[in-house]
């Protein structure tokens, strides 16, 4: 069991800054996601926690003990890589046993441990098979088995599902999460897939350009994004930004778009300049009369819902509405926004304006 604290950690490779002063805390037993586009610094962060890279500055604590400069082998952390690195000439049992045998654990005890892990992973019946004959899913399970069997304090996983196709990935994601719920070990998981992060994580750190943009629960980062980057990166389709110029006072409860008042959560700060009205696709309503005028560009059927792409004087936006509601390309419609879920952004800095919606999250972050 382990709590991991990252304090002002920075990593440079020559002139290149991979991670800028980042701080966050991973609670004991959490499934913790490091999320961001490629090159954002998430894998470097993970490797620093595991001890595969040493930070240029800052500290890392594992259960209160500083481990910043310790060797990977002294940290009691298991690493699961993107590509399942198994020993091809050994069978499944030997692959899983390997970490224990190299710790000189007695044979009988190794056998019990491996049997126990195989039962957890549902791979008891393939223990004697050569790994070369296994499906992708079973290989991944064996790789996990090898990590779990040591009972480390924490698991580090670097896009372990990245190589799998979509349908199977979703299945493995569910399996991994269920496994975590049974074992309760602290897990740090790197991914660029926002849906995976939302689905599996207890907490998410969103990184971009070597910086932590936001840190919170999936619901927080989705509902109360701290920056335009987070708002755009999380959600599919992502948050819409309607651009406008204006001067807003603290305490305002609405803004003006094309001469129409639209509601916003009460602002806790004032600002002026280039602003964006950020609204999630599912918080846009289509009406035949009134509202903010827009033209339907395209519709995409998704079963119970559909995505409608719309053109407005403040930029294009997407709405997620019931597929029973009619919308045809070329049609003029009216839009209404669910004001209490809206986030306003300062376009220049990309920062969310403080409001009654996000105040708590932004002050903590």
């Amino acid at each position: 069991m382990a709590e991991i604290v990252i304090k002002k950690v920075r990593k440079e490779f020559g002139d290149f800054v991979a991670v800028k002063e980042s701080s966050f805390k991973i609670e004991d037993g959490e499934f913790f996601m490091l999320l961001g586009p490629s090159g954002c610094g998430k894998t470097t962060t993970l490797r620093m926690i595991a001890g595969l890279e040493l930070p240029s500055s800052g500290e890392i604590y594992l259960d209160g003990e500083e481990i910043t400069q310790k060797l990977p082998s002294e940290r009691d952390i298991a690493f699961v890589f993107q590509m399942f690195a198994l020993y091809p000439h050994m069978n499944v049992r030997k692959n899983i046993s390997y970490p224990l045998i190299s710790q000189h654990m007695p044979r009988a005890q190794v056998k019990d441990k491996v049997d126990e892990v195989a039962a957890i992973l549902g791979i008891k019946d393939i223990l004697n098979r050569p790994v070369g004959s296994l499906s992708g899913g079973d290989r991944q399970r064996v790789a996990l088995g090898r990590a779990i069997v040591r009972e480390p304090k924490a698991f580090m996983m670097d896009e372990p599902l990245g190589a799998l196709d979509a349908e199977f990935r979703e299945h493995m994601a569910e399996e991994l999460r269920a496994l975590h719920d049974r074992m309760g070990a602290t897990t740090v998981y790197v991914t660029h897939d926002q849906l995976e992060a939302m689905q599996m994580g207890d907490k998410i750190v969103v990184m971009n350009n070597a910086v932590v943009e936001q840190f919170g629960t999936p619901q927080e980062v989705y509902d109360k994004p701290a920056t335009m980057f987070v708002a755009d990166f999380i959600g599919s389709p992502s948050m819409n930004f309607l651009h406008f110029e204006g001067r807003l006072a603290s305490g305002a409860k609405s803004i003006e778009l094309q001469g129409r008042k639209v509601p916003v959560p009460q602002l806790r700060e004032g600002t002026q300049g280039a602003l964006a009205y950020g609204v999630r696709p599912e918080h846009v309503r289509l009406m035949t009369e009134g509202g903010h005028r827009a033209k339907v560009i395209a519709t995409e059927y998704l079963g119970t819902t559909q995505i409608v792409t719309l053109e407005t004087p403040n930029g294009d936006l997407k709405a997620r509405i019931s597929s029973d509601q009619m919308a045809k390309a070329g049609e003029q419609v009216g839009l209404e926004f669910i004001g209490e879920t809206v986030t306003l952004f300062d376009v220049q800095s990309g920062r969310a304006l403080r409001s009654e919606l996000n105040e708590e999250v932004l002050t903590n972050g």
Partner: protein
Amino acid sequence: MAEVKLKGVTKSFKSTVAVKDMELTVPDGAFVVLLGPTGAGKTTTLRLIAGLEKPDKGSIEIGGEPVFGLTPAQRDVAMVFQQYSLYPHLSVYDNLAFPLRSPILRTPEDEVERKVKEVAEVLHIPHKLGNKSTELSGGEMQRVSIGRALVREPSIYLMDEPLSSLDAKLRADLRVELKRIHAELNATLLYVTHDQIEAMTMASHVGVLNEGELVQFGSPREIYENPRTAYVAARLGQPRINLLPVGLLGENAPSGAHSVALRPENIGYGDGRDATVLRIEHLGDQTRLHLKVADHDLVTLTDPHTTLAPGETVQIKPISPIFFDADGARIN
């Protein structure tokens, strides 16, 4: 543009039957998406139509004419592959012009220019025409490789997962764009993918493939609302449809029913069977509730502000269940 017909087409590779007795009509002007997992026979079907593979049995007609024995070029089809294969030493303009300048077409240069510009307009890349193809982003490169198919006016466009190597955002943009292009050009398109979102959002008709067989063919809505088999039911919808043994939730089942399928949105709360909450997933646009009833896991949707917690019990009941027999065939 032309209608494409496959009649009883079978193709095997050694002992593996890749395509089995396929009956498929791609109507003129349609956007047909073949959906199935890896190994379902999607790409083989496409290659058979293109003339890159020969069927063991059956016939293929393009525009009413059998194409047996015709070379890919003679079939007048245009293919777009998963990996964009552009000529790196040529400009975007020359890449787009390439198919038109082929010895078979020998298009006059003024005609080439008109076509290339027209297609660049459709793909929103007219400002990139002078660029080397290596100076483009991934999305732009894939647009150019689609454009290289579009400059010609073939009888049909065949596309093999053209968006799968792109990131999620770009894929979403290009989905809308492909659909627009299809409408603007009034083209006939056969597109294969394992991505259910692509199938649902773009297709006029979806063909669901399973182990080389076409199991159902219809509009996305028909496939989603009226799956003919349990396999088809499981192909569309996120989260996946729940497939449960009959009677688990106490529904009235017709005779012969073996399993019942329930879309996550078709599970009602408040009365019915006891279910234990395993986990709540906040995905933003939807909130998923993972439940356990007896020994079975199921997923349903709930209110984003739910106060439920793991370990609690809720009562659930089925709404418009779909029944299947022991072989997975639909019972009405």
